[in-house]
């Protein structure tokens, strides 16, 4: 059996195991644990999309929450029925054609991604001429603009009241399905020539130009593709929580995604997945420290926000002792596991 068929078989087995786990989880885990498992998948999609922009192309973008918001709103508008929309829009009656738009869930998520990608394309052309921290500030500004526009376009978005009762299509199957689509797309992209060019731009943009690469074109494509998957992630998140409002998509959300990506390892696909799992689970697990504690006859009331304190401490420790994140730029690949002497190959 050559390496290619072996890797294909291993990938097949891994997907089958994941499917079995989902099937088992649906029957045996309680609602809370299922929700956390769902969040892991959505967060991994978001971390992968930011890693494409920041980790692989070196563009410090802080606009993720904006693209997620676009995705979430498009998905909400496309999955709610006309009746639901007309009764829910209180501030202003919902404008045509948004009142009658409807699409099946898969198509709706694709549209969510496409709208986010289209807006990213418009933003990219002026903004990607900037580099480094300036790009971060400009994209952060654009994310805020999107949020303010969503708040004020009340005939489309229901303004600050947000949208409730979004059909909760995003179950484990959908979320992990989209996660796998994102993962395989990223693996193929990063291991292609296109991926090498992106890494070259990240490593040294002048050197890349010097080799005849039209760096601006590649940066725009990378930013747009990253925004597509951010839109998909936003759509799934909206469908998962069934309620969205503009306040949800503040900078804190971008910061969370940045945390998954950086903690996992900038420039590592495996890192993004591991980072999302570890941090999502850790954030939930740390809720214990916010519960009231009884020691003997003393009763200490729960301190809300305590987990964020501990979490920030953990982040500081990561920055101090393992700046490159959990994986650094390394990947876990089938080849890496089964024949250490050979290099390269496909990651899972």
């Amino acid at each position, binding site marked *: 059996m050559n390496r290619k068929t072996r890797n294909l078989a291993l990938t097949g087995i891994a997907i089958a195991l994941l499917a079995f786990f989902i099937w088992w989880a649906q029957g045996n885990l309680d609602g809370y644990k299922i929700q956390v498992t769902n969040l892991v998948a959505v967060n991994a999609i978001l971390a992968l999309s930011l890693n494409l922009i920041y980790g692989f192309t070196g563009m410090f973008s802080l606009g993720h929450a904006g693209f997620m918001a676009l995705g979430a709103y498009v998905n909400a508008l496309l999955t709610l029925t006309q009746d639901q929309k007309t009764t829910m829009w209180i501030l202003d009656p919902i404008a045509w054609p948004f009142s009658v738009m409807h699409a099946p869930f898969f198509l709706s998520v694709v549209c969510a991604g496409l709208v986010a990608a289209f807006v990213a394309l418009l933003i990219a052309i002026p903004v990607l001429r900037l580099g480094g921290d300036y790009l971060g500030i400009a994209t952060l500004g654009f994310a805020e603009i999107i949020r303010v526009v969503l708040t004020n376009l009340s005939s489309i978005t229901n303004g600050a009241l947000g949208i409730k009762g979004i059909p909760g299509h995003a179950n484990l199957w959908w979320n992990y399905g989209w996660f796998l689509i994102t993962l395989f797309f990223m693996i193929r992209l990063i291991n292609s020539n296109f991926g090498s060019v992106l*890494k070259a731009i990240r490593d*040294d943009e*002048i*050197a890349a*130009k*010097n080799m*005849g*690469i*039209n760096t601006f074109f590649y940066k725009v494509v990378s930013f747009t593709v990253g925004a597509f998957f951010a839109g998909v992630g936003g759509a799934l998140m909206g469908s998962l929580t069934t309620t969205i409002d503009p306040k949800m998509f503040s900078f804190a959300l971008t910061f969370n995604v940045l945390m998954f990506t950086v903690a996992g390892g900038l420039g590592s696909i495996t890192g993004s997945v591991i980072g999302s799992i570890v941090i999502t689970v850790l954030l939930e697990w740390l809720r214990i420290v916010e519960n009231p504690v009884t020691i003997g006859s003393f009763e200490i009331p729960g301190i809300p926000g305590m987990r964020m304190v501990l979490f920030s401490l953990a982040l500081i420790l990561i920055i101090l002792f393992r700046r490159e994140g959990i994986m650094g730029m390394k990947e876990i690949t089938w080849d890496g596991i089964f024949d250490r002497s050979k*290099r390269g190959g496909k990651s899972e």
Partner: protein
Amino acid sequence: MLRIEDLHVYYGAIHAVKGISIAIPKGGIVTLIGANGAGKSSTIRSIAGLVKNVKGRILYTPPDGTEMNIAGRRPEDMVRLGIAMSPEGRRILPHLTVEENLKLGAYIRTDTDGVERDRDHVYELFPRLKERSWQKGGTLSGGEQQMLAVGRALMSSPHLVMLDEPSLGLAPLLVKEVFDIIGEINAQGKTVLLVEQNAFAALKIASYAYILEVGAIALEGRGEDLLKDPRVKEAYLGG
């Protein structure tokens, strides 16, 4: 192959290159030498299309074409026309392997067979790179990185190879090795434009040389003549 007429380069209010004219004949090694800030790098970078504010004419004659003015064109156009540069400070891609660095050097090419042949040729010129083909660029020593930068420039199959300070930060023995290889590349038919601070080594190898001082040409001549010139000896060769 390349003629520059009255080239000016500006960085904001700074007038870095003040109207220089040079000629690079096909098959020759031409060198620009001078101290820091003389305008050597600005000249070479404007030929590579990396400088925005350029005035004057850069006239390029491809081997099978007619003369054209390429001043102000984009870097990717220059590479497609057959002008490759190994930049100052090497600019190796630290997180990509040696092999990937070389492959990206051939980014503009579509002839896979030719690219493989050229890669093997680079490995022949620099056997050390072959030994380290799977190593990340950032883990190479300074000399190896310089070899990789030169090899990468060759991968685009250029007619004119421009080398910006290839001896920078190298031990004397390595400098000799790098210059030997520059001679070999030239012997194999590539025209070379060499920018150097190491005047002695550069003049020894060059067929023609220009000495730049604060943005203008102070002196020019055949490499061996300038080596004997008392003014050059005093200013650049330590008496």
